[in-house]
């Protein structure tokens, strides 16, 4: 019994340490958002704000178009996530379940694409999108983000589909299920935890992406949050750190909600159940 308690204490201590380390920068960002400019560069630093003010939040909404950026970011990220998950589960299933000509080639090709440094894409995208007339559109951004999300998502789903036992598929076939039906009704539900993980990663990647949006977006009304917030940073002038932190905190909220609400799907037992049954 005692050994178990000691274990528990160590466990909790570890967790507490990690919490402090991981959360400190976020804590710093959120508290900075409530500080006035003079409270930010101070010795000793204000770990707990000496006074709280909503001035930064007011400024974020009045001086910067955060509402527009917010909506754009949400549109882009949600659409990217939905489409990417559909396309990636399709492809992951295809690679996992079938043997066909070109299977190895495309598997490697897709994974290798993730190794490409982002810089490689900037000028080609610029030129291609210009010819197609889709520069400065959210649509252009979405298809680029979907493509960027595919390698990781497909690789993940391949792994998850691989873990499913082949007997299950054979049973489904015997029962007369078409391939698509097997995919839709049997395989997908079983890898829901995997889908949730992948969805979180894809959403976050799209939501926080900066470099490509810098290249592809021009006008203020099409800017996404990372691009909009970066505009607050100044060279050789004062950067409004408090306002930046406030914008960052506001931007942080959807991601936070996403993480908190999907936690219950990432639970043990679902896959275990499938195997047992």
């Amino acid at each position, binding site marked *: 019994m005692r050994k178990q308690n000691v274990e528990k204490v160590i466990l909790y201590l570890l967790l507490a340490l990690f919490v402090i380390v991981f959360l400190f920068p976020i804590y710093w960002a959120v508290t900075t958002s409530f500080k006035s400019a003079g409270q930010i560069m*101070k010795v000793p630093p204000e770990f707990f704000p000496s006074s709280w003010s909503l001035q930064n939040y007011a400024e974020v909404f009045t001086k910067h178009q955060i509402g527009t950026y917010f909506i754009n970011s949400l549109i882009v990220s949600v659409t990217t996530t939905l489409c990417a998950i559909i396309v990636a589960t399709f492809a992951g299933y295809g690679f996992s379940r079938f043997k066909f000509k070109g299977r190895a080639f495309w598997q490697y090709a897709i994974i290798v694409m993730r190794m490409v440094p982002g810089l490689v894409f900037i000028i080609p995208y610029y030129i291609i999108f210009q010819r197609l007339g889709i*520069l400065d559109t959210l649509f252009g951004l979405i298809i680029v983000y979907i493509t960027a999300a595919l390698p990781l998502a497909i690789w993940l789903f391949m792994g998850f589909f691989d873990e499913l036992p082949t007997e299950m598929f054979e049973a489904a076939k015997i029962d007369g299920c078409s391939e698509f039906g097997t995919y839709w009704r049997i395989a997908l539900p079983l890898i829901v935890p995997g889908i949730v993980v992948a969805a979180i990663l894809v959403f976050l990647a799209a939501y926080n992406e900066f470099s490509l949006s810098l290249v592809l977006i021009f006008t203020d009304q099409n800017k996404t949050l990372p691009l909009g917030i970066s505009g607050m*940073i*100044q060279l050789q002038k*004062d950067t409004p750190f408090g306002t930046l932190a406030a914008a960052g905190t506001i931007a942080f909220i959807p991601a936070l909600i996403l993480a908190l609400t999907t936690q219950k799907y990432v639970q043990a037992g679902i896959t275990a159940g499938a195997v047992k049954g």
Partner: protein
Amino acid sequence: MKKKFNVILLCFLTLTIVLSACSPKTTESGKSPQPEGEFKEVTVEAPDVLGIKLTDLNGGGTLGGQYAGQKIVVATRTGDFADALKNAAKYFEEASGATVEIQSFPAGNDVEKIQLDLNTGHHFDAVLMPVANVHGYAEGGLIQDLQPYINTIASPNLDIDDFIPSLWESYGLYKGRMVAFPYKPDSQLFFYRKDLFEDPEIQKQYKEKTGMDLAVPTTVEDFLTVAEFFTQKSNPDSPTKYGYSSMASKTNSRLIWQNRLAAFGGNDVDEKFKPEFNNEAGLKAMETMLELKKYAPAEWLQLGWDEANALFASGEVAMMEQWPGLYSTIESDNSKVKGKVGYGVTPGGSPTMGGWAIAMTNTAKYPEATYKFLEYVTSKDGELLKINNTMDPTRTSNYNRSEVLASNPMYPALLDSLSGAKILVDPDVPFVSAKLCDIMENAIQAVLREEMTPQAALDEMEQNFIKEIKAVGLGL
């Protein structure tokens, strides 16, 4: 079968969406550069600025809604620059009938974004950028000569001679051609603790220690003596911890050297783009820099904009060389030096200049309207619209207006600095300006870290300068 049907439907749907986006944008009709609307006399009203009534907001009578239906796209950096333009655009639209769209990009990424578009996309009609970049565009044939427009459609109030001469020559002209209007003047300023310099106790102490009268230094010699006095390490009775401070982090450290280079008679490059600093002037400037290191904060090399300014505002520094933006930190409520700071010209009398200029691209769809916009935002009354966005005036007449001069205590120092300044913060060499900056930064950082002797650094800088400038086929 049903499932397969659904799949096929999905595919078609996706294809349709993709194809619909692929349809090329309809080109704007009426691409003629001629004004379309009818000319109708118009008076534009704007709120007073600094108590001055703005009377000439219609281009001296040349604007009257005749550019209706034309759209101008102007690109610049997000922040004060974009805000200033957007503000002026409001009134310009009223006067001219044209629509102005300001597109802005984050600092640190704006240069590459705008360069990429100028080279490939051609979406912008006008750009507001730092001077070295504007000159680079001129050399690359990306912006056009404004003289033809000045000759034909200028406002009667244009008055080119009204621009501060050094600004006109170094910002607006390039190789003798008029390529841009000066928009924002910028120079390194000298900030000093007026209260300490005027304190009789401290004056007495200074006289005792050095045998000279305490005065705001203008020569490099006096500068070093005063700095030594105000540094606790060398003078335990000093009221401040450090005699001198500035930014010395990477991308900012070359200013310390440059602020002395011209004072000693050197330059970064001459008109033929040949390096002009590997000489006595450059060496003395380096040595001064190392001297200053003795009186500067221990963390000097890590100080960027925010920390360096916060340090000065905390009262621990007696003198500082910095861009005018330091003013807002000094005058903020938490500042311990509020109201105690004096403004002057950097010791040596030849500070480094910054500055922004606004130019028209070669591919401007409506060049006449675009020119009128450039002229508008830098006109006598028009340029006052931007003063509240920290975009200081560029015209002598405006500095002669007492309300303007009184609005910012730094203006007298700024004017003196602009007339004495010779070197631009980014070398005025097209195409390779950024590379030359980094070459200077690497060398000066090495000297500051005592990893390289000043002469070796000067040699290396000269070598690399020549290499890079030759590689793009300039001068030499």
